[in-house]
């Protein structure tokens, strides 16, 4: 009868130690990946985040005309003159807003379905209208839709135009900050 010889104690100890080390290393790597993925969205270069946000804004609103008003976390934009009039209409408005709870920068617009459903919703505004308050009214009416421009930011400040300088967005992460000009190069202001 053949007697089966098992592993020696030393072999088992060495193998267990190796597996333990490799297992710990693997866990550490996986943990690092998981943390890295989240961290990259928070600790990435704010200048890149800002540039990407503007790229997305250009894609969503390729005919952006000008900035109509700002406050700390909100900028009102004239996205286009799709209702040909050289004046601002509700359907042409958009707002860039920083959601501090989620860390997201959003582009908010009027829901086109709401505009199609209620033909009296469309409104022509004078150029001195309070377009920031218009957004609050639209929010209360439940006719806003939003798209994410940037996420994972610790703070975004909207810096009003001064002395010919354009409106700027200051993107802040945990380790750095960067400013990006929001206004188009050649803004077209409403005529009335």
């Amino acid at each position: 009868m053949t007697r089966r010889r098992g592993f020696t104690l030393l072999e088992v100890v060495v193998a267990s130690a190796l597996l333990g080390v490799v297992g710990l290393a693997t866990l550490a790597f996986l943990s690092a990946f998981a943390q890295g993925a989240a961290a990259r969205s928070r600790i990435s270069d704010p200048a890149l985040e800002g540039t990407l946000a503007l790229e997305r804004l250009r894609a969503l609103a390729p005919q952006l005309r000008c900035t109509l008003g700002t406050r700390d976390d909100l900028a009102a934009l004239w996205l286009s003159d799709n209702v040909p009039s050289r004046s601002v209409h509700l359907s042409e408005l958009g707002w860039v807003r920083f959601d501090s709870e989620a860390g997201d920068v959003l582009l908010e617009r009027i829901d086109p379905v709401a505009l199609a459903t209620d033909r009296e919703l469309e409104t022509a505004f004078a150029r001195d209208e309070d377009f920031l308050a218009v957004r609050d009214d639209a929010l209360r009416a439940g006719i806003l839709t939003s798209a994410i421009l940037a996420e994972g930011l610790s703070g975004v400040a909207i810096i009003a135009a001064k002395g010919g300088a354009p409106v700027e967005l200051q993107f802040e992460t945990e380790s750095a900050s960067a400013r990006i000009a929001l206004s188009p190069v050649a803004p077209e202001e409403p005529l009335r």
Partner: protein
Amino acid sequence: MRSFPNHSLRGSAVLLALAAVAIATLLGLSLAASRDTNLATSGNLAKAAAARAAASGAVEIAIEMLNDPSTLEDSTGVLFESFQIGDTTVRATALDLATGLPAGADARAVEIAVEANCGGIAQTTRAVGRVTSPNIAHEADLDCSEFALLATETLSIEGDALVGIWKRSPLAVLAEPVSFGLASGTRTGLSIDSRASTHGCVMLLNGAFAGDDDDADDDLSEKVFLLPAEIQVLRAPLPPPHEIAGKSEREADDSDDVFQLEGILARDITLHGDARVPARSSIAMRGTQALDISGNLHVERGASVRVESPTTIIVRGNLVIDACAIEVFPGATLSMVVLGDTTVDASYLGGERSDAAEDRDASGGAAYDGGATRLSIFVCGDKRVAVSEGSVFKGELYAPEGRIEIESRSAVYGRILGAEIRLKAGAALFYDPTLDTARGWKNAESGIWTAGGTVQPALRQISTLDAESLATFAEASDVTPEFVPILTVGKEKSHRRDRLRALAERARSLLAAQAQLRSNGVLRFYSLGFDTMQREND
């Protein structure tokens, strides 16, 4: 007995350790590879910026090329390709906006699409605009189809009625204002309810043409369009006298016969009496060029009329279309000339519906389905036209002496011209900009206007939109007008066709004579900006 150790189990720990080390190595390499994400993103952004700049420059080049109309002759739509701007390769194409096909010499509005590729990062930019004919001073469109609503006496937009653009029209991207008003260019007789929606519309008023783009913008912001003279609205073309011609055509006694139309109509028909399409029946007009009815035509409830070839229906009595559908198939047109009253109740009239489930959509979102160019109704004389009960009419309504009422949630997708027009509460008009040939009253460079900015005197000498009057105008003014081809049964048909053919030939010769002027073409383009298609390694 001597025992031997089990060699097959020995060394397992080493293998396990090697496998673990391999996994760890892969993980390490992956981690190393992922650390330059930001670097890759920066590179992509730089390439995207380069591609975008190149695309923007290439659009300017393409517009310059289109300033020479010969560019589009024998064109496959590709303006240039594999063109290098710095490190970026660009390709530019031109599409006819009206057809969606590669732009040819007859394209009136085009879309330029430029694709720029820099190191695998692609950017596309588009621009749209109208192509002004180099021969524009010798061309004219006299049917006022550039106006969404044009009245010669009174125009009333009541309640929450709406006038706007048909957003499904391929030329809606031009974002041109919709024009409405009185032919006299005054506000007298014009009534617009404060609840009415006329966003994106301009009112026609007397005044000087805008001198430049700034003036035009100022006028637009004031919601007006200024014309230096009163518009001369031509009367609808009268059909030739009704007569039974030849034994081969269906004929009837001089009685109160009511003819029943059913099945397939495949030849010209003249009916002496009234005609009806029975309720819930179906007819197809396939090869019928003209149907001439001396009395009334009643298309009854639930009936379906399919028009599959270019057709003219002349109704010398009243036209009643009641809760039914008249669909004009691709490649076909339907011109109806009505000498009596016209009533359209709860019906659909327009192109063949691509969505069979679409019934009557008065919201402005109705499918384009060939647009408003397939169907025209000409009303002769001081008659009444009523479109009601949620009807949808996709086409042109031309009743320069008629009284038109659009009511009860009905919608017209196209345009309306009448003496008195009432757009009642709930009704809507969605203008189809493909109707605007840019050769009409709104274009100061068209053949309607003289070099001095006055109306061609020859135009004041004619009063009807028929081939004979237009030919008179063409001969007197050296301007080729656009024709409204209405086919009729009878002796005059061949004569009119000959006239049309001769005038078309004249137009061609004029175009050839003006070939030298091609370099003077003027384009106005509106940038649509960029569609970002770059990859982001975020």
